[in-house]
C-alpha cells in the first residue's frame, strides 16, 4: 500500500500556483526598504534572504528557540512567526541596528565582557530580547531576568554569562 508522506499530498487535478510577489515597504534600523515579496514570506526570511541582514538567526522556524528575536516598535517578537507584510509602517530593529563592531551597544559590550556566548548563534536574539526586556521595565531581579530571558535557548549553556551581562546593563540604567 502506498504510504502517505507526512507533508501534505497534492490534490488530484494539480497543485495551487505559488502566490505572486508585490511591493512591501519596511523600515528597518531607520532605513526604508521596498521589497518584492509574496505574502507568505516571514519577516525572518525577508531579513535574511532578501536583505542580507543575517544577524537575525534561524534556529527552529517555529517560535521555539528565540534566535530570530527582533524588536518591533521596541517590543520583542519572534520574527519567524510573523509575516513581513504585517510590518509596514512599523519600526523594525535588528541586531545590526543596535550597534556595530566599531560602536558597540552597552548590551553587546556586556555580552563580550561576561563571555555570555560561545558559538554566538543565539546571541543576536538574546541581545534583542534583553533590550526588549529592558524596554518592558520588568527585569528588576535576577530571577526576573532568568525567567524573562527563558524564551531564548542557548545550547552552549552560557546562561550565567547572559544573566550577568543583562544584570549589569539593567543596573546601570
Amino acid at each position, binding site marked *: 500500500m502506498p504510504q502517505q508522506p507526512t*507533508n501534505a499530498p497534492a490534490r488530484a487535478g494539480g497543485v495551487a500556483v505559488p502566490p505572486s510577489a508585490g511591493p512591501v515597504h519596511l523600515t528597518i534600523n531607520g532605513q526604508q526598504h521596498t521589497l518584492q515579496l509574496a505574502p507568505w514570506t516571514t519577516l525572518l526570511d525577508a531579513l535574511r534572504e532578501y536583505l542580507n541582514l543575517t544577524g537575525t538567526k534561524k534556529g527552529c522556524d517555529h517560535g521555539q528557540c528565540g534566535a530570530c528575536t527582533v524588536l518591533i516598535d521596541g517590543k520583542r517578537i519572534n520574527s519567524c512567526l510573523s509575516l513581513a507584510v504585517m510590518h509596514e509602517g512599523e519600526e523594525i530593529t535588528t541586531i545590526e541596528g543596535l550597534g556595530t563592531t566599531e560602536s558597540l551597544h552597552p548590551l553587546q559590550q556586556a555580552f563580550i565582557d561576561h563571555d555570555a556566548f560561545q558559538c554566538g548563534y543565539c546571541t543576536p536574539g538574546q541581545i534583542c530580547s534583553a533590550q526588549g526586556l529592558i524596554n518592558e521595565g520588568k527585569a528588576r531581579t535576577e530571577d526576573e531576568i*532568568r525567567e524573562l530571558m527563558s524564551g531564548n535557548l542557548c545550547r552552549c549553556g552560557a546562561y550565567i554569562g547572559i544573566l550577568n551581562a543583562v544584570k549589569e546593563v539593567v543596573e546601570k540604567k
Partner: protein
Amino acid sequence: MSTTNHIGKPTSRVDGPAKVTGAARYSAEYNVPGLTYGWVVSSPIAKGKITRVHADEVLALPGVLQVFSHENVPSLAWFDRSYKDDVAPGGSPFRPLHDNEVKFSQQPVALVVAESLEVARYAASLLRLEYEEDKHETDLETKRDEGFEPGRGKTGWMPPPPPRGNPDKAWEEAPHRMEAEYVHGAQHHNPMELFATTAEYHADGKITAYDKTQGVYNVQQYLTKIFGLKKDDCRVVNEYMGGGFGAGLRPQYQVFLAVLAALELKRSVRVTLTRQQMFSFGHRPHTLQYLKLGTNADGTLAALQHHALHETSQFEDYTENVVNWSGMLYQCDNVKLGYQLAKLDVYTPLDMRAPGAATGSIGLEIAMDEMAYAAGLDPLEFRLRNYAEQDQNLKKPFSSKKLRDCYHQGAARFGWEKRTQAPRSMRDDAGKLIGWGIGGGVWDATQQKSAAKASITADGHLTVSSAAGENGTGTYTIMTQIAAETLGLPIEAVTFKLGDTDLPEAPVQGGSWTAASVGTAVKNTCEALGEKLLKLAQKMEGSPLKGAKLEDVEFVNGQIRLRTDASQAVVLRDVLQASGETKVEADSSAMPDMLKQQPYSMHSHNVVFAEVKVDEELGTVHVTRVVNAVAAGHILNLKTARSQVLGSMVWGISAALMEETVMDHKFGRYMNHNYAEYHVPVNADIHDLDVLFVEEEDDIVNPLGVKGIGEVGLLGVAAAIANAVYHATGKRVRDLPIMIDKLL
C-alpha cells in the same frame, strides 16, 4: 615586565564583536549571486522502498528548477571507500539519493530546488512519493540478546581491555556488593544553528562550499572523492559554526545535496535543514549498562564489572569508549569490561560531546554511589580510598593527575563536610528536601597532526592561519593568544584565520584536541617565523643581537631582546622596515612526540559536587548549586575555558533531568523532534555553577601542557545530580532523565 604574556589570561573573545553585532557569517549566510534554494524531503517510513516519485507535479510549478531523487541522480563514485570520511565508523556509509531503499525514518529521499526559499519549501511539501513499507525494528530492548562485539571501530575507538584478576569470584566473595542496570535514551546534539550549506558555483565549474562542519578538510576529501572533483576545484569554508558538539564531525547530507544540485544545475544552491531534520543524522545512542561492584571490609574495591550495549544502524558499526574508563578511574585488581552493539533500523549514531565517557560515567558514578552506601561509606571518602595511582588498563603511570586535588579543593569549595550521609536527612527552610551528590570522570588528552602558517607585514601585523574550527570553543581567541605571546605582540596586532581548505590542514574539531594540536602548530610556526626575524635583525647595522642564537633571545613587548640583558633589544617593526621585505612568512606543523609520550597514560580528570532541592509534593527537582573541579593541564584562557565547563554543566543538568529523544516504535520515528518537545535547559533552570581549575603541570602531553577542556567538564555531572536526588529523596533512579513521574 612583559605586556605580551597572554597565555592563561582571561582574554575576551577576539571574535566577540563579530558575534554580538551579527557580523559573523555562518554557513547559510553567504550572499552569493544567483542563489537558488534546495529543500529536503524526508522519508516518513523507517524501512522499505520508494516505488514512485511524482516529480512532474511539482516541476510544473513556476520557479521550481529540479527535483533530485534516486531516479535522476547521475552516476557517482561506486565504492564505499569514496563515501568514508575521516571519522566514519566501520561499515558501509549511507549514500543520499543512491537507490530506492529506505533505511531509517527521516532519510532524505528527494531535494527540491527552486528560485526562492518559499517556492522550494512549498514544492517539497507537495511532492508525492509512494513507498512499499517493510517491517522495521527500532527498539533496543528487543535486541538485548543480539548484541555483538564490533570488529574495527572508528579512529580513536579501543576495544575494552581483557579482564584482569578474577572478577567473578572476587565479586561473589566481596562483603559488600551491588549490581544494577543504568539506562539513558537517545540524545541529539541540537546545536542552535541549523545545518546548512551554501554551495557557490563558479563560472569555471569550481565549487566553494560554505558548510556547517567541524572539519573542512574532512568535507573536502568526501566531496572530491564522490563527485570526482580536484581539490583545487572544491574549496570548503566554515568561518563560524553555531555549535557542533560532534554533530558536524562527519559530512552531513545537506552538503552532498547542495553540491550535487550546484554541479547538475550549474547554479549556486543553498540547502538548510529544518530543526526536525536535525534529528535525522546521528545521535548519542540509547545505551543499557550493567554494573556489578564489590567492596572489601576496608572500603577498597574488590571487583568491578561494567558491560554496555548500545544501538547502531544496520549499515555501520558506530563505536565509542563507554566502559574502558571504568578500568582506570579507580584502583581495582579484579575487573571485567564488556561492550556490545545491536543493529536497529535507525541512522548511525554519532559522537556527541564526550562520546562514550559521558555515558560510561553515568553508569560507573551512580554505581559507585550505590556501592558507597552499601559499604556504609561517604561517597567522597569511598573514592579517595580507591584512588588510582596508575592506569591499570595500560599499566602505565599518568603523565600528570591532580584528581586528588580536585576532590579536596572541590569538596572545600562546596562545603561537603556539612553533608549528612542518610538519605532524606537534609531540608531547607521551606521544607524542601536537599540532596548532595558527587560524580566525576576521566578523558583522553590527545594531540593530532596539524599545520599552520604565519605572515608578518612591514607594519608589524601578524596573520596566522590553520584550517581549524570555531564552534564556540574559543579557537580564534586562544590561537591569537599563543601567536601573540610567541612573537611578543599585543593581541590587536594578531589576526588568526581558520575554517578554510585554502589554509594549512588541521584535524576535525573534536576529541578536545584542538588546543593541543593546532595550538602547538601555531606555536611552532611562530617560532619558525621568529627565527627568520632574528636573522633579519642580525643583519641590521650595529645590531645588538649579532651572534645570538634563537634560544638566547626572547620576543617581548614588540621587541626581540637578549634574555640575559633586556636592554639589548631591537623593535620588531624596525627589523621589518630595515629588511625591505613587505612581509616575512613561515609555515610549520606539529605532531605528538610519540617517543616521549609512549611510557605514559595521558588524561584529564574532574569531580563534580551537586546540590538539588526536591519538592516532594510536585516531584520537581532544581539543581541549585554545582561545583566542578577540573584538572586538565594548563588553561590557556580562563574566561573561555570556564565557559566551556559551564556549558558542560548545563549539558549535564540537561542529561540528568530533561534531555531524551523519544521514539515511537510503531512508526520507528523520533516523536519529539523539535525544540519545544526536546527539552534542554533554559535560563531559569540554571543557578549557581562554579568552576574550579586545579593547577596541573604536564610537559609530556605537548609543549603547551594543555589537555583540552571541551568534554571533561561534562563527565559525572548527570551522575552527581542523580546521586543528589537519591540523597534528597531515598529514591534511586537508574534511567535518565529523571522526570517527575519517576519521583512520585
